[in-house]
């Protein structure tokens, strides 16, 4: 490996065979480059008489944005792609944590460059903090096949492994339909949408796109009065209702009973989680004896009504 000074024009960025990092912010790096210059030279190698980047995408892209003309690089004199890639991998492993999609890209490259599957499991999965199982390797390889837009969303929303695993159950077209629903939501709600649509589809023996393109969902998406978050949340609730119809109807009956009784907002009454137990819980807060007594009187009045007995049928 020898150190050289190359103009940025000499480095071809079109060949991304060794690239595993995407969607990063260059802001801080640019500040640092402006202050102290480029201290760590990126790695390049020669393929078809062109210098291609092996490691240091962030650094090179930042230099380009700052209109640097030339930078120092290390030239790897290795013709084998796997061996070349490993140099980049070890350089990165020593200096930073890999994010989920980066791990997927690393494993996909190792596979593409002909590394033995058993060696990937035994040697590289632990290096990437992944348990040594074939099914996990399969999962990460599937992640690496997501479309670029999906990869960007995964990266930006920091989606967890479990959600990505669910995403692999959808076709690319379905993934594109899901994307606007996932983007405004937090991780738990994202998972709920993925899980419910996949499971409804499997239960009903139909492709998930039939659910995602159903009239009910289309109507919510077409509603211009709703924000993207409100739309996603409404669709999430719709899917939940379809996934758990009996539970939803029990929950609905309970809520409408409280509504019918005009149950006061300041006193909360809850069934046990999923109506599993016979008991209910009442919660209220009070600041003095007077408030406490008022709540008790209200509860006494509510409990004497005939509708109150209906509650006990819902358990």
């Amino acid at each position, binding site marked *: 490996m020898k150190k050289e000074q190359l103009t940025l024009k000499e480095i071809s960025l079109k060949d991304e065979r060794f690239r595993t990092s995407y969607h990063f912010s260059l802001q801080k790096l640019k500040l640092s480059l402006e202050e102290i210059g480029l201290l760590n030279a990126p790695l390049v190698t020669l393929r078809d008489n062109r210098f291609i980047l092996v490691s240091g995408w962030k650094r090179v892209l930042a230099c380009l944005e700052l209109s640097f003309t030339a930078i120092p690089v290390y030239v790897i004199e290795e013709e084998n792609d796997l061996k070349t890639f490993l140099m980049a991998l070890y350089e990165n492993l020593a200096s930073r944590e890999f994010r989920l999609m980066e791990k997927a890209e690393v494993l996909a490259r190792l596979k593409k460059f002909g590394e033995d599957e*058993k060696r990937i*499991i*035994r040697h590289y999965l632990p290096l990437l903090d992944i348990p*040594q*199982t*074939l*099914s996990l390797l*399969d999962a990460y390889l599937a992640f690496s096949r997501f479309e670029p837009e999906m990869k960007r969303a995964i990266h930006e929303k920091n989606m967890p492994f479990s959600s990505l*695993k669910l995403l692999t159950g959808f076709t690319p077209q379905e993934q594109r339909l899901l994307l606007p629903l996932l983007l405004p939501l937090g991780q738990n709600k994202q998972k709920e949408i993925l899980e419910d649509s996949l*499971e*409804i589809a*499997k*239960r009903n*023996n139909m492709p998930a796109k039939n659910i995602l393109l159903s009239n009910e969902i289309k109507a919510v998406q077409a509603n211009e009065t709703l924000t993207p978050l409100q739309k996603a949340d409404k669709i999430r609730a719709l899917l939940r209702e379809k*996934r*758990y*119809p*009996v*539970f939803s109807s*029990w929950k609905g009956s309970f809520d409408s009973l409280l509504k019918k009784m005009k149950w006061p907002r300041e006193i909360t009454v809850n069934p046990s*989680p*999923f*109506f*599993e*137990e*016979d008991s209910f819980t009442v919660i209220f807060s009070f600041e003095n004896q007077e408030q406490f007594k008022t709540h008790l009187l209200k509860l006494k009045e509510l409990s004497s009504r005939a509708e109150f007995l209906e509650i006990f049928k819902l*358990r």
Partner: protein
Amino acid sequence: MGKTEFLPRRVYIEKKSLHRALTKRILKNIGRIPLEIVEDSQDFLEERKISRDSVKHGKKDLFITSQKGEFVKPCPCTPHTIGCNYYIINLDLNCPLNCTYCILQHYLSDPVITVHTNLDDLWTQLDVFLDRNKDRWIRIGTGELGDSLLIDHLTGNSKELISYFKNKHNVIFELKTKTVNKIAESEEGGSPAIEERINAANRVVDKGFRVGFHFDPLILYPGCEKDYNDVVENLLEHIDPARIAWISLGSLRFPPSLKEIIQERFPETKIIYSEMIKGKDGKLRYFKPLRLELYKNVVRAIKEKGGRRVPLYFCMEGKSIWREVLGWVPRGKEGLEAYLSSPFGKSVV
């Protein structure tokens, strides 16, 4: 195991177990199957875990080794439900059947059918355990972490166990083999047909033993009500209810992590897409009104078809299910144990 008995594809023997009587018996019964001596059990087991479907591959091979821990353990049950004070003997682990819902896919960390050959340790542990519990009834059985009989033609363990327990006056010993359930065709890969299982039970009754039936897991699917009614009818037509020690009922339930395993191993199954909620014990189970309907139907059928006096109990259910379906609630696990032990004299179940 039905018409064809299980024969492993390959037998692995831990070096320490080579000289044991049970190992010799297995090798005699097994015939000409490729053998491999295992120097390091840990390495051997770790290596097997790499396979794409290690659970499936594990069902094809036999590993002869020793039980390093306790053979006898209390049945773990699940929190927030009424237990039954049952004890389990972990003699064999894993099973050649390929049931979709099987908890062993999640529970067993070693993907291979395992036989423990240090029977001397088992008898010693049982002696100590029974001596410590000589003043109470003990319900104990194999078949919790593997089927009691599916590899019995190789091990001959059931004979030894019956012979050990036959003179123990405070013990109800149970050998558990594949449950009766019409979903067998789609979800219990390799399991014997119901008729075959009932015939087998009948032969056990003819030998003078009582039999117990575990309708577990009951599975919801369109038409399940009629199917379960037919199974109950068939069962009670062929088995004298007076010879039935108990019938236990449990509905499909599993830890959430098993769901992923089932999805991977059985992508065509639909049983995990019913309305399952997370119970207080963290396991997924049918929403309570659905469980109640399922149980009430089976209990009604049992009572209508002549099983009114057969002791019934629930596996891993709470008070409200007991109250609503059976009309009574046992006083904890001791109460249930007393209820299930009371009809017996010196029976071996």
